[in-house]
């Protein structure tokens, strides 16, 4: 399965035309302890770069943006009771939602793992 990353620190893993989306490990570290995740309703239409979810940590509340257009198929209900999953396993168990992608060409705007690693290394300087 191909994995993509956005400059807003979301990751996206593609399986057919369904993408699983979450925030990156770098993002969870920067946010600190996550205390609440507000997920979109199933069936909601996402617009690329529009608001998709809200993640709240002890430091701040941040928007999570949709990396692509599409429709929400499923959300990670485990985050309701245990938002700390995002800290424990941001790019696995701590996924946010699954979305049916409208336009696969939008993936071209995203980065692969290697470019994302370079991108966050650039931010550290």
């Amino acid at each position, binding site marked *: 399965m191909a994995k993509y990353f956005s400059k807003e620190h979301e990751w996206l893993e593609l399986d057919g035309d369904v993408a699983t989306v979450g925030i990156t490990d770098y993002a969870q570290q920067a946010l600190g*302890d996550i*205390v609440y995740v507000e997920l979109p309703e199933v069936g909601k239409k996402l617009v690329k770069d529009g608001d998709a979810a809200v993640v*709240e940590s*002890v*430091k*701040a509340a941040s928007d999570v943006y949709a990396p692509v257009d599409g429709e929400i198929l499923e959300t990670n209900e485990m985050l309701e009771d245990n938002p*700390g999953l995002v800290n424990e396993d941001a790019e696995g168990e701590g996924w946010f939602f699954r979305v049916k992608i409208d336009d696969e060409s939008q993936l071209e705007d995203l980065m692969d793992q290697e470019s994302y690693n370079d991108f966050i290394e650039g931010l550290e300087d």
Partner: protein
Amino acid sequence: MSFQTHTGNRGLVLEEKLIFEQGEAGRCGVDLPKPDAVKSRLGGLERDSDVGLPGLSEPQVVRHYTRLSQKNFGIDSGFFPLGSCTMKHNPRLNEKVARMPGLADLHPMQPESTVQGALELIDSCAHWLMVLTGMPAVAMSPASGAQGELCGMMAIRAALDARGENRRRVLVPESAHGTNPATAAACGFTVDSIPATADGRVDLAAFEAKLGDDVAGIMLTNPNTCGLFERDVRKIADLVHAAGGYFYCDGANFNAIVGRVRPADLGIDAMHINLHKTFSTPHGGGGPGSGPVVFSDALAPFAPLPYVLHKDGKFHLVETASEQDGKKPFGRLKGFHGQMGMFIRALTYMKSHGADGLRQASGDAVLNANYLLARLKDKLSVAFPGYCMHEALFDDEFLKGTGVSTLDLAKAIIDEGFHPMTMYFPLVVHGALLVEPTETETKESIDQFCDAVLSLVAKAESGDAEFFKNAPYLTPRRRLDETAAARNPVLRWVPKNAE
């Protein structure tokens, strides 16, 4: 301290239970005779169980609240670098005037002829605000800075509606107060954020590129949240006006420029003024907020009701749209006149300082912040180069490699006897430490704070991260588990036998 006391008290720092966990049933502060022959008119709906109030004597109640107050640390206890956003010194003269019987005993529903002095006071306060900002109109009623923002944006919305234009995009810099985008969204606008330049100001080219015929306006804080003056503000005003939009200025930081810069000269259409920040009214636990909004000629007709009209030697509160001549108020935001008690205190502050005193206060606020910046900048890392306005902003670059975080340093500052500064805000600065000493701090108290911070930075550099991880040591409670508190908040006391 290495031993535990039997009581849990630490010397004269007393442990205090919740008031519901004290006393015993039946104990009471007063002993009144039972009323006889009380006839219920509740039709059988009388409560037949206990209310569950704690039974305490009068001295127990007095001690409870006194002890709680002693646990508080505020501007009256010591250096409080959260600054004017939270609380700056409230001159006691303000309180004396607010307690004068002719003002303290007023009722908002008294006949107008009996409150001419109070209406004149509101009118005078409004006059001062208009002169200080150079703006032709002011709405006094908004009850806080945030409601002031709402007031300003509703006036912009009303003005656009009157023009028959459906402009819905509002530009907001990414360093803005969180209330700015929230206000725009609450008014039905969409928010489009403008990036900042490397020196912490609005990126003019990016701003210009975002302008268009769907732009309702810009919401800009000046001086901004990074404590910097937006030097392109005049250009920004011209550009947004040329594009047909309005300029809302968040005037929260007016305390840094009052008496020196008139917002009207910057091309502003609407700006709220936090009376607590600029004119020293109490705030937070101490009193209600108050956020009057000044308007340009373009927006003045849409200002909300009510307002005071001075005509034929009399003061009149205009409360209905039918009394208007050519004005189109968008409605009203609040019952009665606004925060009368705050107008009294603000006007007292203005009149006791005079124009020259207000000018000196903003100068002292900026001087104090820059003195603090100069004392700390070699050991801490300054977020943006150059002088600051009323607050000094650092990032956490200086802590890199020490294992100490901004939060750890802030906790250690508590042990030194200071309230910590604002942390992790603004969000655009990594691990931000924002320090606002305000105009009333002496050089001694700023020096004492700087000496303490510098000694802690030296300790962090010496590799003693463990010390910081466990701070604070000397407070009634040690490091609290903020994560657990946020994830599993206990919001209500539940009696033991009800569990």
